[in-house]
């Protein structure tokens, strides 16, 4: 087991290196000169040159890349061009809203998706099953931002059950926290729960058709016992895998949802930074989110291996 984890960790390093190269070269090829912008309209050529040297823009790309890499590994993600704050500080400020949104969405999706899938698998071609198919097809076809506006319109503007926008940290009270995150989480969960429900159903169907299930039923085990003690445990592997790989969908959707509901999270920070060419912030955030994604996949693989000993090759 340890060997497996160690091997996966080692494989992650070249992946992160590729990410670093991609992120760095992306911005290196950007047209435009940040030194000009910072120096301003009234600056002389000497002033612009001074700014350029201060930013380290005059050195060749290799040196800049490894210098940047060295800083990253020390934990120094640089300083934002436009706000003057350190990138780590800006990321730290935005972390809580995004993590809250993502966790809430995962919890919501899993608690809706898994039961839905189980109920659908229990009676194929039944009501729940058809409902699930419709739900899945529907949620794949509606873009996240459209869903967001519809949800906001119905539940916030019209029925006034929830606020239109904003975020309240959990420290300021659970009620506010839940209330502010409910609509964004519902919007994000629409697709994620559909994916999870679909996988759950398929996996459960496969497991339920196995002989040992029939044996258990023949022996007189009750529905619940069959579903949970025998079927779900064995069906869990693909479900857990899907929860992990579906997280990429979630992170992508979070960017849009943060925009629609004005949540001060990492997604919004990155979009703003990209549109304003704030290079250090862009590099820092994309790097951090890629690293997070790689780690999550690693965790999923480990969980996968823990659940199914056959995987540990």
């Amino acid at each position: 087991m340890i060997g497996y984890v160690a091997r996966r960790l080692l494989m992650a390093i070249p992946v992160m290196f590729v990410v670093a190269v991609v992120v760095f070269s992306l911005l290196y090829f950007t047209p435009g000169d940040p030194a000009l912008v910072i120096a301003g309209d009234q600056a002389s050529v000497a002033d612009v040159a001074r700014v350029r040297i201060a930013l380290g823009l005059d050195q060749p790309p290799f040196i800049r890349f490894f210098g940047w890499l060295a800083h990253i590994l020390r934990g120094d993600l640089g300083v934002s061009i436009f706000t003057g704050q350190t990138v780590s500080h800006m990321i730290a400020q935005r972390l809580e809203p995004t993590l809250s949104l993502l966790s809430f969405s995962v919890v919501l999706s899993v608690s809706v998706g898994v039961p839905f899938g189980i109920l659908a698998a229990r009676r194929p071609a039944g009501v729940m099953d058809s409902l699930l198919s419709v739900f899945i097809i529907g949620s794949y076809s509606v873009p996240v931002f459209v869903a967001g506006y519809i949800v906001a319109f119905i539940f916030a503007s019209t029925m006034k059950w929830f606020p239109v926008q904003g975020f309240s940290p959990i420290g300021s009270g659970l009620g506010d926290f839940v209330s502010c995150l409910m609509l964004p989480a519902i919007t994000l969960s629409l697709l994620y729960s559909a994916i999870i429900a679909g996988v759950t159903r398929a996996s459960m169907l496969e497991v339920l058709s196995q002989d040992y299930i029939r044996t258990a039923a023949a022996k007189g085990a009750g529905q619940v016992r069959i579903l949970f003690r025998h079927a779900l445990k064995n069906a869990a592997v693909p479900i857990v895998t899907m929860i992990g790989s579906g997280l990429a969908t979630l992170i992508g959707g979070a960017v849009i949802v943060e925009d629609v509901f004005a949540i001060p999270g990492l997604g919004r920070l990155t979009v703003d930074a990209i549109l304003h060419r704030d290079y250090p912030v862009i590099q820092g955030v994309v790097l951090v989110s890629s690293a997070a994604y790689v780690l999550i996949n690693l965790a999923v693989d480990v969980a996968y291996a823990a659940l199914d000993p056959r995987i540990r090759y």
Partner: protein
Amino acid sequence: MTREHGVAEAAIPTPRVIVVAVPVRLPRAALRLRSRWELIAGSALLLVMVALAVLAPLLTLFDPRALDLAARLETASVAHTLGTDGLGRDLWSRLLYGGRVSLGVGFCAAALSSLIGVCIGLVAPMNRMLDAVVMRIMDGVMSIPTILLAIALVAVAGSSVQNVVIAVTIVEAPRIARIIRSRTLSLRSRPFIDAAIASGSSLPKIILRHLLPGVLPQLIVQATFVCGGAMLIESALSFIGAGTPPTIPSWGNIMADGKALWQIRPNLIFFPAACLSISLLAVNLIAEGLRKILSPQSASGG
């Protein structure tokens, strides 16, 4: 290993899995019809959307780019069937021509990423070193959250339809490459490949004549999924403001323009959203139908 089978992580909602339960008790004939309904329904819908886009000049008299500031933000009227937008442009006309861009980006990106993905996926497994390096690169690119990578690419290269297609291709091609690669690997161990090698076929011939037909079903299915994903990414990019330039109509753009005004003119968001959703639905139905016919053995999930 099992994870790679058709279930790579998704982009902004790109379905990798649509599961429609197959009831085990119905007779075979009914089964076959029921299993084809997605293909039929999806193709019909898509045909309608494509027809609308292609026949656009015949269906509207308005130039989608013509400004008419005296008539801005009108509601549906005799002159303007669906009303006008913030600059007085006819909405129906923009929807039709926008379909060309949105559907076009979808098809082009699907075609391009399939081409690139299949090339990489077929060639990489031929050499262990190459395979390891190429797959790490693919993993690396896929580790960057898709929407961020796409926005960054368009922001770097500039806003244009070509750049959106290129950005979506770069984002989606690695996924196809991985899937094709794992299929190639599993095909490679089959006897007929050994036979071909034994009979002295050259490598390119093996790839083209033996492996390619083997991966083709999977490729077609994935390409269709990518088409839907590409349309979604394009609309999301345009919606944020980092996609198709605003003078060129696309469904995402029309929504971006109307985003600030949806409380007074909901039609500006509703109609393009409906067009997009119908097209996505169509593409997804087709993809699911194809998947069931062409590669029924790929487990849906896990």
